[in-house]
């Protein structure tokens, strides 16, 4: 960890001529009467992207951004300024602008002395350098060829490869200094197939994590994404209209865990609950899910897309039990909301970049496994929907209403999976839906590492997961009545 801190200091402090004493001065400029806390968030991100279509790699791009965000907190008030220039005069100017929230001109004294040690969940590598350019191009071509090889009905294949190298350092007015080096890669495949009567369909596949590009070559993972995308698209080519109405729904394992992210995850974020605007506000200790349902938010899984060694406020991440055997136990907290609610921070303080304010956000959110065999769950349903792949979702945290959109689904008739149906949006009420979980599978799976969560205009990478679930009564938004 001290190595990571050295990397961060070399990145941010040496080129800008900043010493630890300068950090003390900038933080001191932030502190003063009326200010409870503050931080300096230094961030460097280098991002590259390569994309293939029509069988050739047409586009490549490289982006580099660096800056510092300066925050001062007074009670529940936050003052914020940021700059791409991290030299001392700018830091002091930003500190003064942020501190103006307390309307006081006196400054305080801070000494950064304690180095916050985080986890070591992933290698502190630069993923962009883990393959040479030729090998990246070759990978894209192999994925393209694999997709086209599956079926002559494949008419278009788009493949994208993204890598991010992020270095962050957080100096807090409580005297702690934390750093993290966060690799993140993602490979995506999008295929279009054309069948009889020029009917067309599409599907996506992909995955990634906090690893180097070699991850995609191991076990031919990237090729598997391609095969899966083609399989899904061909299934959809045969799909009939989805049913409309309230049905028993069996959700497959893994990515359908987006249900948890929308139905309960956002509603359990500390900011909404401190303000009392969530449908879950004030419900700690109450039953919000069926017995046997346990949901956690876990930022400590090795190499996962949603994991962090320390969050964006320098707090080490943890595995937080949100719902335990049906009972609501805990909210997800950043430091501001934890302090105002009188509970510990849970390592969920995250921000899109130095130019954005941190807030409570999910990391990897999933439901623990139960005891039912997935086959047994399907067999238990007389008529229903079996949904195994999803696009995005959305929630209104105040009313609790949430949606998520199936992209691969089948009818269940007399305990058997029969015809594929077209994509449809499923809608439910967050505080109610988990009470209708009647069977939990023994096949917990996490998603492949493609999720991005948006909140108040800020995007962060997240993970989801769940075992196969039977939900007795979800509204399916098809067209067949």
């Amino acid at each position, binding site marked *: 960890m001290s190595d990571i801190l050295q990397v961060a200091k070399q990145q941010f402090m040496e080129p800008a001529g900043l010493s630890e004493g300068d950090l003390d001065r900038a933080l001191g400029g932030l502190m003063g009467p009326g200010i409870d806390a503050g931080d300096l968030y230094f961030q460097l991100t280098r991002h590259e992207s390569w994309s293939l*279509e029509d069988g*050739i790699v*047409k*586009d*490549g*791009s*490289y*982006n*580099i*951004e*660096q*800056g510092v965000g300066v925050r001062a907190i007074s009670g*529940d*008030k*936050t*003052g*914020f*300024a*940021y700059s*791409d220039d991290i030299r001392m005069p700018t830091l002091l100017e*930003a500190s003064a602008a942020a501190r*103006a*929230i307390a309307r006081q001109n006196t400054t305080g004294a801070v000494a950064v002395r304690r180095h916050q040690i985080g986890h070591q969940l992933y290698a502190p590598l630069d993923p962009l350098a883990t393959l040479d*350019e030729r090998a*990246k*191009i070759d990978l894209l071509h192999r994925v393209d060829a694999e997709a086209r090889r599956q079926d002559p009905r494949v008419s*278009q294949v*788009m493949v994208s490869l993204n890598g991010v190298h992020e270095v962050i350092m957080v100096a807090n007015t409580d005297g702690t200094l934390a750093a993290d080096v966060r690799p993140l890669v993602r490979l995506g495949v999008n295929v*279009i197939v054309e069948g009889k009567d020029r009917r*067309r*369909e599409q599907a996506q596949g992909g995955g990634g994590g906090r690893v180097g590009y070699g991850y995609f070559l191991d076990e031919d993972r990237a090729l598997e994404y391609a095969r899966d995308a083609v399989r899904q698209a061909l299934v959809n080519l045969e799909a009939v209209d*989805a049913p*409309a*109405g*309230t049905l028993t729904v069996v959700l497959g394992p893994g990515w359908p865990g987006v249900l948890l992210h929308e139905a309960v995850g956002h509603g359990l974020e500390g900011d909404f609950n401190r*303000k009392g*605007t969530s449908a879950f506000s004030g419900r700690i200790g109450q039953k919000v899910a069926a017995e046997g349902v346990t949901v956690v938010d876990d930022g400590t899984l090795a190499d996962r897309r949603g994991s962090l060694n320390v969050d964006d406020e320098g707090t080490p991440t943890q595995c937080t039990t949100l719902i335990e055997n049906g009972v609501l136990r805990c909210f997800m907290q950043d430091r501001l909301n934890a302090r105002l609610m009188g509970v510990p921070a849970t390592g969920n303080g995250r921000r899109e970049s130095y*130019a954005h*304010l941190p807030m409570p956000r999910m990391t990897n959110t999933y439901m623990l496994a139960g005891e039912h065999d997935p086959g047994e769950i399907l067999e238990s349903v007389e008529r229903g929907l079996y949904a195994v792949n999803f*696009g995005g979702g*959305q929630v*209104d945290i*105040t*009313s609790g*209403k*949430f*949606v998520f*959109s199936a992209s691969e689904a089948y009818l269940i008739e007399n305990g058997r999976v029969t015809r594929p149906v*077209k*994509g*449809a*949006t499923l*809608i439910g*009420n967050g505080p109610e839906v988990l009470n209708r979980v009647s069977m939990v599978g023994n096949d917990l799976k996490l998603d492949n590492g493609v999720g991005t969560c948006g909140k108040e205009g800020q995007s962060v990478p997240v993970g989801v997961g769940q075992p196969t679930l039977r939900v007795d009564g979800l*509204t*399916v*938004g*098809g*067209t067949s*009545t």
Partner: protein
Amino acid sequence: MTAIQELPRDQQTMERIVEQMLDEARKSGAESAEAAASNDLGLSVNVRLGEVETLEHHKDQGVAITVYFGRRKGTASTSDLRPEALREAVQAACRIARYTAEDPYAGLADPALMARDWPDLDLDHPWDLSVEQAIELAQCCEAAARNHDARIINSEGASANTVRGLVVYGNTHGFLGAYTTTRHSLSCSVVAADDKGMQRDYWYTVSRDPAGLQAPDAVGLEAARRAVRRLGGRRLSTRQCAALYVPEMARSLIGHFVGAVRGGALYRKASFLVDALEQDIFPSFVRIHEQPHLKGALGSLPFDSEGVATTPRDVVSGGVLKGYVLDSYSARRLGMTTTGNAGGVHNLTIEPGDLDLDGLLRSMGSGLLVTELIGHGINLVTGDYSRGAAGFWVENGEIAWPVEEITVAGNLRDLFKGIRAVGSDVNTDSNIRTGSLLLERVTVAGE
């Protein structure tokens, strides 16, 4: 810092940055190149329960360069505008172009299409707004909402925002253009409650000119009214019925149309409107046209993100699709000419009809008034559409009761064809300007 008046870097400085990058690209062997630089300054204040919650000073900047070596392309961008960082960005773009493939369709837009001279579009109205004034506006907005009704029990706050930004674009055809724009807004989001639960809703006003904003108390009042009227929402039984989309929701339907006639979707055959030019897509009374030069409008721009002159045109006339939404790349792929839409549409306007919302409600008789949509259940390849919705059940032309936790679904081709009327209640807050849309039939899934 008080007012958002003077940008950190002026137009001349930013133009010089773009020119330097293009020079550097040429020196590095690129046959052609294009670069864009931007520079924004903003202030954003959020007030909750009468007190300041966040005060944010925004200062953003960035440059992006695209180089072409023959038909091979590379792109790079950075937020660091120092000379060495600019040079590094150009070098990074050139390095990428060594590895990308020859793409016969790649390149700058046709030089003959570059914007030459353009009218002042009246897009720059800096607001001399102090932090104290911004706080006061937001407080006034929130107070109006909270005082409106005893059922308003909580607030997510009200905010006042102002931003001023400069964009410079240049390419090796010799084109160099710039514009400065401002955007100011007020918004408010409050929570209403009854014994059945809570409902949140919001309202906002946005304008390039502060004088064009709605009064803060009017914004607050509307947010409160919208939250309260959602209380007691019920579900509907599954059915097919008529639907009336209010302008803010109607805009998303037209947005899906734009998505389906975008060049990128068409040349990939990833649209249900492939080869739909000259087909009847809408009923014959529908006209959809682009007005890029409307003075002071939020979607007005003199040139697109390739320097191509924007021009007024009909996209749909008499219900017939007359044009796609193309940039130069997708146009070359389709054997057509760019429509000046690199970066999006410009004030795409649905010609309004005669009826206001009340008139449309009466015309619908019974059906669903859609005031909120959530989720992303739109498949543009097939046109299949399925989204979460909330709104009101309408009977005898009048709002009967609030509806929630339902979906609306159909195929966009049928939904477009089934438009029965366009309202006169045009919302001009976005790039897409439409009134309410009355649809003959959607499938509602509920109980």
